[in-house]
């Protein structure tokens, strides 16, 4: 898109180039936006990334298949469970592994709890970007901590869970896990109500977010935008519904969509998605069967990862991660290490249309537009 500076006969005008970031609290990490400004209006915006690049894909090529499972935790370090999920799904597709029933339920419960964590945190940080410093974030952290305690109880770590294995999960959940999840399910809607009372009809939030950063439906699809971003633009596309991976076809839930595709819609779609996640969780904890949590083949693979050799071929596994479509493309040459391992990171691809959304808005709007995309730099830079 081109933008022309408005000439003034009495004033000498020129565009101002500013580098927003990489060290700036609003960029959620080390991300940089090179912007060209006309006054305070954004004329051009070029994202610069790679400050956190560690060539995750090359690292994975040099270790066993299971060896990169803990590394996937570090992609999107807020949602390590769903990263594990996508990688496990891709490798299971490649190796043709079955997953026992109980493990499927545990996986779904973990994935939906992760979605709650991510969306709660996003809403908190979006408000941070808007200038409501740290009050909403602390409410969000309070709730997130309860879920992270559960993760710690089953996986041994709050954030870097490393809980999934090919063909199941590492270990069965603890005895008091299900009652605790039930407690979270009971309390979470109340927390969301409280959150919404403070935020959803807040006049400042509405004034700042509505009709800002509009992403048209066609562009969203064409640019491969996924997750809540895509749905806020009015596209009812949820991979849980479309691909029916794992056991998601057993749970009835709705796919909330936005209308205008602005920042407010992205905020609100996430709130609604959390309510749908609670519905899935409710049903999952009610129906979870007893049984093994890892298949015999998977258990052998987990115990001796260097002998785990998927047959030659390639596979693409994708899931609806909280941030969008997280996909893993894995190629095996029949050896104990991946021949090629590629991560299709939702945060990275959702950044493609950052410039289109920001043009014509003010610098302060660019901050919340970036916040509403919901990026994690561990995943963008890989």
């Amino acid at each position: 898109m081109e933008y022309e500076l408005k000439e003034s006969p009495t004033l000498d005008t020129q565009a101002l180039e500013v580098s927003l970031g990489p060290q700036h609290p609003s960029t959620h990490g080390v991300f940089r936006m090179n912007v060209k400004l006309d006054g305070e209006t954004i004329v051009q915006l070029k994202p610069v990334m790679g400050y956190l690049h560690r060539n995750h894909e090359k690292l994975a090529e040099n270790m066993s298949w299971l060896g990169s499972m803990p590394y996937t935790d570090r992609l999107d370090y807020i949602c390590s469970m769903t990263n594990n999920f996508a990688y496990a799904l891709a490798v299971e597709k490649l190796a043709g592994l079955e997953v026992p029933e109980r493990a499927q339920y545990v996986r779904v419960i973990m994935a939906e709890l992760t979605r709650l964590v991510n969306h709660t945190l996003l809403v908190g940080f979006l408000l941070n970007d808007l200038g409501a410093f740290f009050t909403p974030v602390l409410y969000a952290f309070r709730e997130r901590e309860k879920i992270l305690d559960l993760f710690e109880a089953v996986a041994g770590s709050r954030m870097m869970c490393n809980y999934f294995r090919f063909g199941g999960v590492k270990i069965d959940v603890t005895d008091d896990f299900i009652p605790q999840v039930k407690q979270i399910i009971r309390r979470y809607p109340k927390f969301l109500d409280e959150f919404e009372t403070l935020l959803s009809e807040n006049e400042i939030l509405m004034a700042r977010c509505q009709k800002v950063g509009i992403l048209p439906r066609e562009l969203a699809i064409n640019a491969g935008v996924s997750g809540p971003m895509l749905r806020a633009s009015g596209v009812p596309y949820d991979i849980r519904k479309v691909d029916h991976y794992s056991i998601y076809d057993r749970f009835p839930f709705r796919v909330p969509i936005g209308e205008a595709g602005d920042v407010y819609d992205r905020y609100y779609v996430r709130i609604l998605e959390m309510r749908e996640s609670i519905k899935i969780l409710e049903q999952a904890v009610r129906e979870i069967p007893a049984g093994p949590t890892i298949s015999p083949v998977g258990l052998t693979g987990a115990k001796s990862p260097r002998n785990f050799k998927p047959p030659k071929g390639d596979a693409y596994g994708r899931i609806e991660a909280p941030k969008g479509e997280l996909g893993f493309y894995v190629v095996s040459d029949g050896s104990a290490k991946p021949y090629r391992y590629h991560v299709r990171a939702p945060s990275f691809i959702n950044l493609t249309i950052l410039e289109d959304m920001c043009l014509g808005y003010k610098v302060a709007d660019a901050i919340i537009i970036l916040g509403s995309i919901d990026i994690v730099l561990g995943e963008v830079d890989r």
Partner: protein
Amino acid sequence: MISIEEVKRDIENKFPGTVLTVEGTSLVIPRASWRDIASFLKNDPSYALDYLSSVTGVDYKEYFEVVYHFFSVAKKEGPITVKVRTARSEAKIPSVTPIWRSAEFQEREAYDLLGIQFEGHPDLRRILMWEGFQFHPLRKDYVQENQDRPVEQF
């Protein structure tokens, strides 16, 4: 959902003279006719592949392969996996960024890490490594610092 064999037959009827091959569940398309076939796949209502999910490259030592995973949001179908190959010495593939914007960053990434040139890309620069970096780290002959295995020769 139509099978990959049917897709192959359909494309070969539409573009006489092009020969496609099916490998597993993916379709190998010759490089020369890739851009025409790409816009056909996007615009033809029986496919409507409006969503390009993933673009990535693989170094197979003799040749490079670019792998595309397509889905259709309109029809809620997919995936159709397309592979396009290029000789290692040449390493050039027509860009699909004018057709699907989602390829913009992903092609830049494949260029950055594998050194595949995407012809017709509006802004083909390095994206993750820094400007001025000499190598392409995901190539199989790239020597890492503190590498503990012999350098591959081919």
